[in-house]
């Protein structure tokens, strides 16, 4: 194994981690502020990707599509919050799981109704096409580097938003004491809608970015959703910092596992079998890591201090 390959795999892990962070940030924010567990977060990711693909096909511009994905996902999030989610805040997690499970069914089948059963086409914008040279003599796709950069920008913006703005103060207040913030005269219902729409927009943004790399199709949000849950549970639910570190951890472990495990097994069994066993173990790896972490730290690595 060369340095170039190791570096490339590390970047791949980082890029997966950044994508997961965009999903996980919204999830963990919504849980931290409203105490809501939202299984339909993956559907908002799908909404973002479909919006981007549709607008990009109409206008020929990926960038307009990206804006549309933010707008559509935020709008879908706000509508869902107003119609459904807002009735679930004082319910137990069980009701939230069921209601948002129902939302997945509605979103998935509704999207198929509107767009048909075939995957949509969405390509990377010309500006970000191609690969660039890396130290060590290898090449790396520019678009993936752009995703890493976009993720870093979003993470920093979220940090500023939460630590420096009025909205951020309210969000933090909402996280630590929900009754109190209402008593202080903040319109808590509007705050909740805004936070939910913000989380949805992040998911939609992730969906659009990834949609250009993958297949824009119904059900694309589900695998990401489960990974994002793994991330926030590892990181400590409600903690943005935990989500960031958890996402990077999961991204790197998953990528490295898929890359290295078959190589480890090749030392013991024939290559074809090593591929199968290594691959099987790699697909279970992050769940094993999650179980281990929770066994030692039942509230994740960075549980929010107040709760």
């Amino acid at each position, binding site marked *: 194994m060369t340095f170039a390959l190791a570096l490339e795999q590390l970047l791949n892990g980082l890029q997966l981690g950044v994508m997961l962070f965009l999903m996980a940030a919204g999830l963990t924010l919504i849980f931290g502020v409203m105490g809501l*567990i939202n299984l339909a977060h993956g559907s908002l990711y799908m909404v973002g990707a479909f919006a981007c693909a549709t607008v990009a096909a109409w206008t020929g511009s990926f960038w307009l599509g990206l804006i549309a994905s933010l707008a559509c996902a935020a709008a879908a999030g706000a509508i869902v919050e107003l119609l459904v989610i807002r009735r679930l805040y004082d*319910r137990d997690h069980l009701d939230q*799981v069921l209601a948002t499970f*129902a939302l997945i069914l*509605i979103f998935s089948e509704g999207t198929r109704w509107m767009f048909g059963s075939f995957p949509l086409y969405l390509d990377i914008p010309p500006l970000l096409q191609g690969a660039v040279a890396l130290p060590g003599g290898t090449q790396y796709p520019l678009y993936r580097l752009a995703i890493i950069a976009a993720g870093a920008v979003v993470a920093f913006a979220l940090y500023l938003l939460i630590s420096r703005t009025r909205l951020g103060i309210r969000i933090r207040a909402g996280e630590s004491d929900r009754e109190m913030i209402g008593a202080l005269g903040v319109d808590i219902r509007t705050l909740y809608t805004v936070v939910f729409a913000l989380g949805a927009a992040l998911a939609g943004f992730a969906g659009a970015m990834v949609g250009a790399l993958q297949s824009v199709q119904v059900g694309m949000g589900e695998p990401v959703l489960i990974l994002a849950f793994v991330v926030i549970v590892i990181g400590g639910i409600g903690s943005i910092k935990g989500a960031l570190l958890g996402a990077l951890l999961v991204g790197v472990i998953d990528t490295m596992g898929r890359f290295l495990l078959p190589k480890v097994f090749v030392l013991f069994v024939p290559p074809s079998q090593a591929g199968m066993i290594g691959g099987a173990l790699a697909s279970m790896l992050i769940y094993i890591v999650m*179980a281990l972490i929770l066994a030692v730290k039942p509230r994740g690595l960075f549980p929010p201090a107040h709760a």
Partner: protein
Amino acid sequence: MSRETVVNLILAVLLLAVPLLANAVGQPFYITLATRIAILALAATGLNLALGLGGLVSFGHAAFFGIGGYAAGILATHGFSGDPLIFGLSGTNLMPVIWLVAAVTAGLAGLAIGAISLRTSGVYFIMITLAFAQMVYYFAVSWPAYGGEDGLSILVRNQFPGVNSMRPLSFFLICYVVLLVSIGLFALIRASRFGSALQAARQNPVRVATVGIRPFRIRLTAFAISAMMTGLAGALFADLNRFVSPSMLSWHMSGELIVLIILGGTGRLFGPLAGAALYVIIEYALGGITERWQFFLGLILLGVVLFARGGLLGFVTGKARHG
């Protein structure tokens, strides 16, 4: 007799009457449908023990359902081919033996998963049970020996001594009896000291701890029994379909089991049966009308959560009790 008891009796009688009638008029498919209801109700009754009584929202019960199914599939495959299984033991096609193995295997898995998961609570518990189920799922998909993603066919349905299990009605009756016995067991557990402690641990863990009961042990025991029941249901489900596959282990299955319970009424004795009946009927009826049935199923589920708290039984009996 309370109103709920009357409704329960009606449900039990209806579930028996429909297949008998279907058999009389020569519509065996409705027997299959009723069998499916009975088996799903059994699986959900198992989950109800953990979720309804213990407040343990397990999002990973598909693991036990699938383990039970695979126990049946693997034993039957070896029983059919005559190849020894492990330690020179052979497979079997006798249902009682298969049920025992399925329940014990699922129970052991429940002990292991519970021992780690029960250290957490709330959303963490939901997610860690999901993680364990995903682990088992990916294992089953990638493990080539028993079909992997393609699953495992059971060529001939397993036998129950003295009954021709290939006849749809006979197999239904087997499942029906197992379901009633399990519901009876659920009632016994709920009324026992153990059951009281379990419910108390849900409502007020601190108080239970101060009386000197360790909630962890009680919950772990309940979780394991719950896994056994769901595993048993998995074995029956495998025999109903004559097929096992990783999709029995998928997170959608875990979600469906939760749906069944809430649909019927959480924590209620006949809630799982009411929920399973409603779910299977909705799925079948909607599927007959439109390809978009999942959309409308979603709307109905959403309506139930938002407006019919207490599920079907809560609605019928007029008590919006939750748990």
